């Protein structure tokens, strides 16, 4: 189990250019596998173009109380990148004036940003009603100051989306750290207690499943059924939907794939499962990702690879919705992760 970020460890793979180099060389350079660009060109889907902006996904910082094995953010307690209130103010200006209807807060653990609650309250004031917070669950139990988060979420009708890799303790703790399973169960029960995830409740509680190793997620509906049965039978827990998300080969997951000699097989699996229908609905077509320091990216993965948007409008301070709409999405081989099988996005399957 990891305890430090790749960045803290001085691992080469904490550098985005090293990751991009690996993704462009080897089996993709020698033609064994087609590049993502070539693959989507086969079905005349290159370039992928951004449609109307619907979701602003804001990464409020890379600090996290957990150090999960496969984190694409390379987040952890040692990461100090945190969004300031000034940048949040700029985001609020954009929210007021753009057509985006959903604010999706992620991290790290977004709740660890000292201005997290202020930001949610201010965003509510400017009329955002569709909030998503990507909560790791354990944060709710990590410190007394977070104990009232379920009530805070409820007050602002925040849609809570939480990672839960498996319904068994063993598989969950292996991926996310010792004790994570028990704390997550307790947090889910507390969310249920205030009304989250209950049948018919407007307080949305969805879970995210991502595989614990070098394999793709199974059928989302079948997994949801299994999760619901196990969490209800064992702990009396209710939730709404399960999002099955594919691990993208970047950051700590890429490091794991290489170290375990699974990289090539995994890339083969992704390419073999390529689904052109999923390309139609990849999340970068309606979502914009904003980094802790205010830069704009096509998605959270491109943010971690430091691949900026292909537009003159590159920072929240110079946000221009007209310029951004219709831009060409920046792609590399990691994009195969969003187009495998039924597709994958922060909202689960797309095809």
């Amino acid at each position, binding site marked *: 189990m990891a305890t430090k970020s790749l960045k803290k460890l001085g691992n080469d793979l904490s550098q985005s250019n090293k990751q991009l180099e690996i993704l462009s060389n080897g089996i993709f350079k020698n033609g064994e596998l087609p590049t993502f660009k070539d693959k989507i060109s086969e079905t005349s889907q290159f370039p992928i173009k951004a449609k109307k902006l619907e979701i602003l996904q804001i990464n409020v910082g890379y600090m996290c109380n957990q150090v999960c094995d496969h984190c694409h953010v390379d987040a952890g307690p040692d990461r100090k990148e945190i969004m300031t209130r000034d940048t949040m103010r700029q985001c609020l200006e954009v929210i007021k004036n753009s057509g985006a209807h959903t604010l999706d807060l992620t991290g790290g653990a977004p709740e660890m940003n000292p201005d997290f609650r202020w930001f949610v309250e201010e965003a509510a004031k400017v009329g955002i009603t569709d909030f998503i917070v990507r909560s790791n669950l354990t944060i709710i139990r990590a410190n007394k100051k977070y104990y009232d988060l379920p009530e805070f979420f409820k007050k602002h009708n925040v849609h809570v989306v939480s990672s839960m890799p498996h319904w068994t303790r063993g598989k969950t703790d292996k991926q996310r750290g010792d004790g994570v399973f028990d704390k997550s169960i307790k947090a889910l029960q507390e969310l249920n207690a205030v009304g989250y995830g209950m049948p018919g409740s407007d307080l949305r509680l969805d879970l995210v499943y991502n*595989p614990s190793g070098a394999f*793709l*997620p199974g059928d989302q509906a*079948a997994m949801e059924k299994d999760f619901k049965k196990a969490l209800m039978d064992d702990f009396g827990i209710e939730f709404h939907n399960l999002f099955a998300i594919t691990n993208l080969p970047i950051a700590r997951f890429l490091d794991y794939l290489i170290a375990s000699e699974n990289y090539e097989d995994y890339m083969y699996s992704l390419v073999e499962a390529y689904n052109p229908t999923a390309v139609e609905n990849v999340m970068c077509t309606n979502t914009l990702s904003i980094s802790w320091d205010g830069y704009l990216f096509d998605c959270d993965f491109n943010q971690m690879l430091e691949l900026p948007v292909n537009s003159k409008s590159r920072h929240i301070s110079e946000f221009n919705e007209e310029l951004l709409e219709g831009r060409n999405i920046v792609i590399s081989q990691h994009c195969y992760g969003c187009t495998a099988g039924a597709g994958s996005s922060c909202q689960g399957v797309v095809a």
Partner: protein
Amino acid sequence: MSKPYYDAADLRKFGKITEWNEELGTKFFDYYGKVFEEGALTAREKSLIALAVAHTEQCPYCIDAYTKDTLQRGITKEQMMEAIHVGAAIKSGATLVHGVQMMNKVNKLDG
């Protein structure tokens, strides 16, 4: 350097058997695909059966394929091992039940 009879990378080439007999190859893969669809049994149940049979057949390609498939379906390693024991129990049972034939023969010859 010695060359092994089995190469894990050959599994990816399975589809190529169609190239030397398209009609039969295609019919086989259509049938195979259909068998594993959700039916009176769930795809999950079928995957566990396949994992057990992969072991009794001692097919390394099938073991690779269905270990991955069961993992993808969220099946735990305890469930996977139990499935293999079912296969192993039938294998050993099939051996031992022939002991009755041996006993019959002994009784006949050496009664």
